[in-house]
Each structure stands twice: as C-alpha cells, then as structure tokens.
C-alpha cells in the first residue's frame, strides 16, 4: 500500500460490513474528495486510473467507529489525556468520530467551549472531534445550561456525565426546555443515595471483599424516574451506560409503550463481570461497577436484539497515581478507545454475536441517534472507514497504547481483531 497521492481512493475486494444496509459480503468502495462515491457489492470492481488502490483481500471494511463517550483531560487535566493523544488512540482503534464528554475543568457548558474543543480537534487533522455539552452549568445539577446556544454551536447531546441530576424538578425543566430544540439528553441512571460511596455491586463478592456496594436496583429506580419524566416532557433521552438486567427490563417496557428512548452500554460491561475485580484490581474499578455474569449475558442479548443502540468505549483516562491506590480510593474508569474494536469483536468470537450485530451499535447506531451522516457505507457518506483483520490474534499491551494514561483493563488480554488502516474523510490517519 502506498500513501494516497490525492484525495481519491479505492478499497477493492474487501469483506464489506455495513450494518445500516445489513450487508456482510464481498465488495469495493470508491472514495473521492472525502466522501464515498460508490459502493460495489460482489467482486470484480476496477479502480479508475490514477487512484490510490488498496487491495483488501481477506480484510473487513466497515464504517469507522463512532464513540459517543470519550473523556479527555483537555482542558484542565492535560497530563491524563489531551485531544491529540485521544485522537491518536481513536485512529489506532479504528474510531473515526469521538464525542468528548463535558466533565472537563472547566466544564463544557457554554457555546464558546463547544466551539473551542471542535476547533482544537479539527486542527489536529486526525479524527472527527465532536462534543457533548453539560446539561447544567458547571454540572451543578441545579442551573440549566445554555442548551440552545450549545446546540447551535454543534453540541451533539447534553449530559452531566457521571453526575446524576438528583433534583427531579431540575431534570424535568432541562428535559422540557431541551424539547424546544429537539436536543438529546443523556443521563446516568444511578440513584444518588443508594449509590453514594459504592464501588461494587451488592452481592456475595462485594461482601466477601468488604467493599462498599450499591444494590443493582439503584440503576432501575433512577431509570424509572427518568423515563416517567421522558413520558411527561416528550424529551429525547439516552440511557447512559445501562448495566443491569433489571434496568434492561425497565427499558424494554418503556420501548413497548412507544417511548423514544435510546440506550448505550460500555464495552467494559459487555466484556467483564465482577469476578474480574479479583484481588482488588483497580483497573476494574468502574462506574457503574462491574456486575454479575448474568447481567453481562443480558447486556449481550440486548445488543443482539437491538434494545441497546450504542456501544461506547467509556474511555476514561486515569494516571497511575490515581489507580495505584486501595480499591475504594482508586479513580473509577478505564481507557478503551484503542481496544474498542478488538474487545467488541470478542462478542463475535466468544459470545456468538453476529458480526453485523456487533458493528451496528458501533457505527450506524450512534450515527442515527446523533443525526450524523457517517456510520454507513453508501455513496455520499463521509469516507470514514476502518479496514481490519477480523481474526488476527493480538495481545494487548497497555504500555504500547497511545493514550497518555495506561489504565486499560484489557492489559495482557488475548483478543482477536486488528486494525490495519483507518481513514477519515478519505485520508489515512492510521496504518498498522
């Protein structure tokens, strides 16, 4: 493969994976001026003259991954992660769009901040850097943020990230107000009182380890409240990081009633269970905490049947000094951008999910939710693509990951699936 001489590209004879059209089969993709110009199913496509040609024999080509929950430390905690290091990690992981979370310091709670992050991200020339705005000012859970102005500035959705808007009246007003802009509100479902101080899920394991824990119903209780508000206000709503079987049942009931609610799950909760905490391994200290295996199985089923719309990396960089602590004192969260694809492919290799069902919540699912024109293989869509070897074995080595923080729970894991090449708007931004 040679570097593209111009902005024209042809990827020939790949295994195309396009969840939006339910296509998994041989084909080729032609690209010009940053957009897909033609998708050819079957073999035998011929590249026009003068085009950079990639013969992809045996490799998969899918829309680039869209990760809607990425934390960086910019601004405020640059040693953890910058937009640049996060963008490099994304590119290496086949992720072509990242949505930056607003829990920075200061919070991304006004239109100037939204524009600032987008401008900084674009200047890097790597992946698409988009932004979620805070739902309340400084994420204080009290004062509604400038949702209308941030929406105009390009914010894709609104969330206080890990903080729950405990005051029901505040959330009701935020949802009511957001409806005027058809803005999407994302909330973590965790009853703030039941969850206070908890670092594990209540159960035999947490008891044995002596860890402060919250019952799984803390998630359902808060979700029930949020859904009642959705019903009343007509807001567009995303359940952020659903993690329990109980809450999935609540979600399914709401869907059956016709409520327009979407749900995301973190890759960690699809790949790990509470047993992974093992001997107080702090890289598995997550928020929400890891759950029993039965919850993990229920989440995988929910991905399979479409109840869950989006899989995120829940990328949350934390430097070693924040992780090398007693379990309950360690910072929660894990990095995941660079390992997202390989980890998700384990759902195919080990848990028996169809490949398209794995790719859908990583591509067309989030694109549809956020109204992006990416996430599909079709003429006119941005040429955000990932070329990968679906079966190649890899051993994750956290030290070689591009993130500035190395808190990967996949460190040392053997996975299958290797990103070969990542394209954003037809430009190669990563090559293995």
């Amino acid at each position, binding site marked *: 493969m040679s570097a593209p001489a111009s902005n024209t590209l042809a990827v020939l004879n790949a295994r195309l994976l396009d969840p939006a059209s339910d296509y998994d089969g041989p084909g080729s993709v032609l690209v010009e001026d940053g957009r897909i110009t033609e998708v050819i199913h079957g073999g035998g496509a011929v590249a026009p003259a003068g085009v950079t040609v990639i013969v992809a024999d045996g490799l998969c080509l899918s829309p680039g991954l869209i990760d809607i929950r990425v934390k960086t430390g910019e601004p405020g905690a640059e040693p953890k992660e910058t937009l640049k290091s996060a963008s490099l990690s994304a590119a290496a992981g086949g992720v072509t769009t990242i949505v930056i979370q607003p829990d920075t310091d200061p919070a991304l709670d006004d239109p100037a901040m939204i524009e600032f992050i987008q401008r900084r991200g674009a200047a890097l020339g790597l992946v698409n850097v988009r932004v979620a705005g805070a739902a309340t000012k400084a994420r204080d859970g009290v004062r*509604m943020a400038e949702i*209308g102005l941030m929406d105009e500035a390009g914010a894709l959705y609104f969330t206080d990230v890990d903080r729950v808007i405990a005051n029901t009246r505040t959330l009701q*007003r935020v949802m009511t107000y957001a*409806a*005027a802009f058809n803005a999407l509100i994302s909330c973590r479902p965790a009853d703030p009182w039941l969850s206070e101080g908890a670092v594990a899920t209540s159960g035999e394991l947490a008891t044995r380890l002596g860890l402060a824990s919250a019952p799984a119903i803390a998630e359902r209780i808060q979700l029930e409240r949020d859904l009642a508000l959705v019903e009343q206000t007509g807001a567009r709503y995303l359940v952020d990081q659903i993690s329990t079987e109980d809450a999935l049942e609540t979600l399914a009931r709401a869907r059956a009633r016709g409520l327009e609610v979407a749900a995301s799950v973190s890759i960690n909760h699809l790949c790990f269970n509470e047993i992974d905490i093992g001997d107080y391994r702090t890289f598995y200290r997550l928020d929400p905490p890891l759950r029993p295996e039965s919850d993990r199985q229920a989440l995988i089923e929910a991905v399979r049947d479409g109840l869950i719309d989006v899989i995120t990396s829940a990328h949350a960089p934390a430097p070693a000094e924040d992780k090398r602590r007693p379990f309950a004192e360690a910072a929660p969260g894990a990095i995941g951008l660079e390992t997202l694809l390989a980890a998700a492919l384990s759902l195919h290799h080990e848990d028996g999910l169809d490949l398209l069902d794995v790719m859908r919540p990583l591509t067309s699912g989030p694109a549809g939710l956020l109204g992006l024109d990416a996430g599909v293989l079709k003429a006119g869509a941005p040429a955000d693509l990932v070329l990968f070897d679906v079966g190649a074995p890899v051993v994750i080595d956290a030290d070689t990951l591009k993130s500035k923080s190395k808190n990967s729970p996949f460190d040392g894991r053997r996975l299958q699936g290797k990103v070969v090449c990542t394209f954003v708007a037809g430009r190669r931004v990563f090559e293995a």
Partner: protein
Amino acid sequence: MSQPPHSEASLTDPILERLGPFPRDHFLSASDLNAATAPALLDLADAFVDFNRGSTKALDLMRGRTVMNLFFENSTRTSSSFEIAAKRLGADVVNMSPRTSSVAKGETLIDTAVTLNAMKPDVLVVRHGASGAAALLSQKVECAVVNAGDGRHEHPTQALLDLLSLRRAFGDVGGLTVAICGDIAHSRVARSNVSMLSMMGARVRLIGPPTLVPGDADRWGCEVFHDMREGLKGCDVVMMLRLQLERMEGALVPSTREYFRFWGLDREKLAWANPGAKVMHPGPMNRGVEIDSEVADDLTVSLIQDQVEMGVAARMAVLAALSARLDGDAA
C-alpha cells in the same frame, strides 16, 4: 355637575353619552366583560383619550367618592395610572402600600379588608402577589374592587388597555392574529389578554420556551409555538411579556443571552410577522432580554407608548362605570 370651560364641553359630551354602569359589582377578571359590554367600555375609554389630550383634565364624575389604591406588590406605572385616572374623575385617592403598614406586622389580608372597609371607601384597587387575592377581598368588603394584578392570575385593566390600543391602531380587533410571547406561565397579563382577545374575535398564539409555556396552554384555544419565527409567521400583533429576572439564571431559562437569541424580539424575528405588524409590551421592559431597543423605540411599529396613555383612559372608563353603578345602586 359644574360646566368645564366652553372649549372642553365638546370633549365631555361623548363621555356623558357613553357612560353607563359597569356590568358587574367588581372588575376582577377579563371574564367580567363580554363581547357586548367590552366594546361599550372601550367606546367610553376612547372618549377619555380625547379628553385627556385636552388642556383641562378635571372632571367631577367621582366627586365625593374615595378610591383606595392597595398595592401589596411594588408598582409604579399601574398604581400611578390608577391614581391619575381617579383624580381626573374628581375622586379622593388614598394610596396604601401595606409593605410599610400593619400588614407587614402580620395582619391577614381579611383583617386588612375589614379594617379598610370600615373606612368606607367606594372603590378598592388591589394588587397582590397571591392569585385570587382580589376575589377574596371582594367577598369581604362592601365597595367595588378592581383587580390590578393578582399573582399569576389576572390583570384585567391591562388587557382592556391593550384592547383599546389595538382597536385604535387597527380599527377592529376581530380577525387579528396576536402572538403573546415570553413567560406565559407566570404572566397574569397573558391570562387576561388570552381571554379578552379571544372574546373579541382575535386569534391568539402563545410563543415561548417550553419551560415558560404551560403544557396545557393549547386548551385555552391558543396555538402554541416554541420556535418564535414559526410562531410569528402571519401575525399582526406581537405582544411581548416581561421576563422576571429571577427566572433567567438557569432555573427555567439558561441565560439572558440565550433567551434573547431564541425568544427576544429583534428586527430579524419581527420580519417574520405580517408587514405592518405592531409591537406591544406591558412594561417595564428588559431591553436586550425580551426586546431589542431598536424595535421598542421604533414608533412606526411600537405601540408601547400608546399603551401607557391608553392605560389612564381605560382605567378612567372602569372607575367611572363602577362609580355609575354605585350611583345607580344608591338611587
């Protein structure tokens, strides 16, 4: 009745011709008027407008009567408008601001009413922060009560003066499309105007952020819009409401700049309304929040100054008619 100077006689004649008793004992709500009685009152108010523009502004229609202004909430323009109206009709006026009186010492509203009633006023003009306060007072006193604003319930003389301004600007209110914009949820002006404008055959639209428009406002017979440009399309009148400062800092609206961006009236948004559309505001205005000065001060579109002038005339009509009803009762 003493004759005014000769040149003014032509101005008082229309007043006397049109003066009749108020249809109710009190004026508590826009619904105390109807499609027949409201125009008659407006005709009378029209005569007062001409009279007020003359050089001599003294009448004796209410000579010997006592009007008590009882304002539990701060007010400059409404209380002075009532005071001037009553004085021009020859009444004795007493202004009470219970903020500095015994009410501040814990006296209940009903105790105050009983006390004031014992002083035998003829008309009690009341503003109070609680919805229904004027109606409660009216049940405890023997005089006529005029509601000058009760909580977020009603402000009927404001609606009457708005109607007067519109009638003078457009000739007829029936068939007009009027957009009421802003904080509908907390506005007594909006409630009184919705019922009075609808009564007179205007089409009413409500425009504002969903946090400031009641969820069931469409049941008032109004169309509800959250997108101001959409809502202004085809409107003849844009009636802006004041946004209370305490609602701006994130509780119901994120900020004044966001409010102005989406729901503040500027030239660009006004251009979505019909050509020749008029702009109203009950005052006091928050310039740069709900209305751009460029629009507020443009006398070719703004009726805001007219509204203040019409306020005195409309209140003179209400007071004179209530007084006429008292005269009738006495007779």
